[in-house]
């Protein structure tokens, strides 16, 4: 079974802090993704990567950056956390379109 592991289940950070969300997958998948889930808005794509050191902006990249130095690890960075970034963050990896994604359990981030 593919495993996608997100380092924290719950995080509380202060406004203006730099925040790192880590994600590791163990199945040699090329593609990795970061989404946020908010009530009434569904899942929105922040950034994705289809190879090491490659990154592509999703639908809502503002205020975020990413890093993919190794194939198995994809980090989401909030450069200066703001209260409107309070959300559930979901990391996923995939091999191809038909098999879909494997998601991590999510990180519930609260910015105060």
């Amino acid at each position, binding site marked *: 079974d593919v495993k*996608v592991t997100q380092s924290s289940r719950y995080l509380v950070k202060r406004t203006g802090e730099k925040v790192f969300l880590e994600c590791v997958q163990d199945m040699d998948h090329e593609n990795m993704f970061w989404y946020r889930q908010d009530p009434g808005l*569904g*899942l*929105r794509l922040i950034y994705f990567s289809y190879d090491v050191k490659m990154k*592509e902006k999703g639908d809502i990249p503002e205020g975020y950056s990413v890093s993919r130095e190794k194939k198995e690890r994809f980090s989401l960075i909030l450069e200066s956390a703001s209260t409107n970034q309070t959300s559930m963050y979901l990391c996923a990896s995939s091999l*191809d*379109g038909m098999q879909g994604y*494997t998601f991590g359990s999510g990180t519930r981030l609260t910015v105060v």
Partner: protein
Amino acid sequence: DQQVKQNSPSLSVQEGRISILNCDYTNSMFDYFLWYKKYPAEGPTFLISISSIKDKNEDGRFTVFLNKSAKHLSLHIVPSQPGDSAVYFCAASLVDSGYALNFGKGTSLLVTP
């Protein structure tokens, strides 16, 4: 602009009956369509998918139907069970975009005993 739409935020069905969850999309170039199921405090789990060249895919109690002319797909669950109660997300992907998925806003299904 949302390219994948789930217009019903919630659905309630009796145990044993059929659940039908609907999804509409606007981009005729999508290559794959997928359904995910999500329980609270967990990540979504992949349920079933269909290629744009097919019109039906079946996996046990779950069947997905694709109507390309109407840009519509649906997920049928027969028979529905209380454990099926969850939020269901419809999603679509383009091969050219690295399989990045466009998700709908989700439909919350409640299966009552």
